[in-house]
């Protein structure tokens, strides 16, 4: 069965204090070559039948992302292919 994956990210101009907190913690792990961390959200949708990208886009636009502060990207993942990865 195929799933639709929606990736939601804060728009580049919106400050991401969570990402900054993570970036600021990295030197404690000995990581000193990271200049920026931004945190988003991955949402997986399974339709009863075939994956419907248009419907997924509508769901993402209306509910999953807030277009005022967030962008989203949609793609289909084939579970069989995903297992290989």
């Amino acid at each position, binding site marked *: 069965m195929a799933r639709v994956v929606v990736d939601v990210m804060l728009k580049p*101009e919106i*400050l991401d204090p969570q990402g900054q907190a993570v970036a600021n913690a990295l030197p404690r792990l000995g990581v000193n070559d990271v200049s920026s961390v931004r945190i988003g959200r991955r949402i997986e949708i399974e339709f009863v039948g075939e994956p419907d990208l248009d419907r997924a886009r509508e769901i993402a636009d209306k509910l999953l992302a*807030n277009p005022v502060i967030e962008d989203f990207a949609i793609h289909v993942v084939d579970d069989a292919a995903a297992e290989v990865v």
Partner: protein
Amino acid sequence: MRIGVVTFPGSLDDGDAARAARIAGADVVRLWHGDPDLHGVDAVVLPGGFSYGDALRCGAIARFAPVMETIIDAARGGLPVLGICNGFQILCEAHLLPGALTRNQHLHFRNRDQFLRVESTGTAWTNSFTAGQEILIPVKNGEGCYVADERTLDQLEAEGRVVARYIRGNPNGSQRDIAAITNEAGNVVGIMPHPEHAVEALTGPSLDGLGFFTSVLRALAGASAGANAGGHQS
């Protein structure tokens, strides 16, 4: 005058909001998120709390509650609506107000008594204040950082739609110290701090919060007097 207070799953301050409206002199009607009927109320308060556990984004799920579909239509028709804290977040998610409320910039939950300056007294919820009046009411939020694009912020300022600003310290990083805004018509107001917690000497830092509730009663009385003068039955 009948003020409706909505309860969503996860609302916390619906009881205090109802009490504040009662103290101001309103008849309070408790509204339920799953019931689209507004039961003839003259104004609505969306209270603070964590509706639907803040799942996805604060207010994102509540915005699609059956009661909200009715409130959104009614608000566009002029019904006074006050969103406090989570209620403000819901109003932004419903696009009744521009912008969004994001994680506090310092990532800490802030809970303290907060001074505000009332910037706009032209709204249904702030007409009892004087322009520039400084008030003290509690603030308590983790995601109260108001953000909008520069064009929207400029427009809010130019149209006098910044209703209140944080003074003597910005608790959450909100752009331009914005604590409360209104829509173009002035009937919908979103405010991050909690006027309903500042209506009695026993529990509040002041009685300043009462002004929001007396304001809407005054606005409604004015509207109803106008309607009667026009020959309509209210």
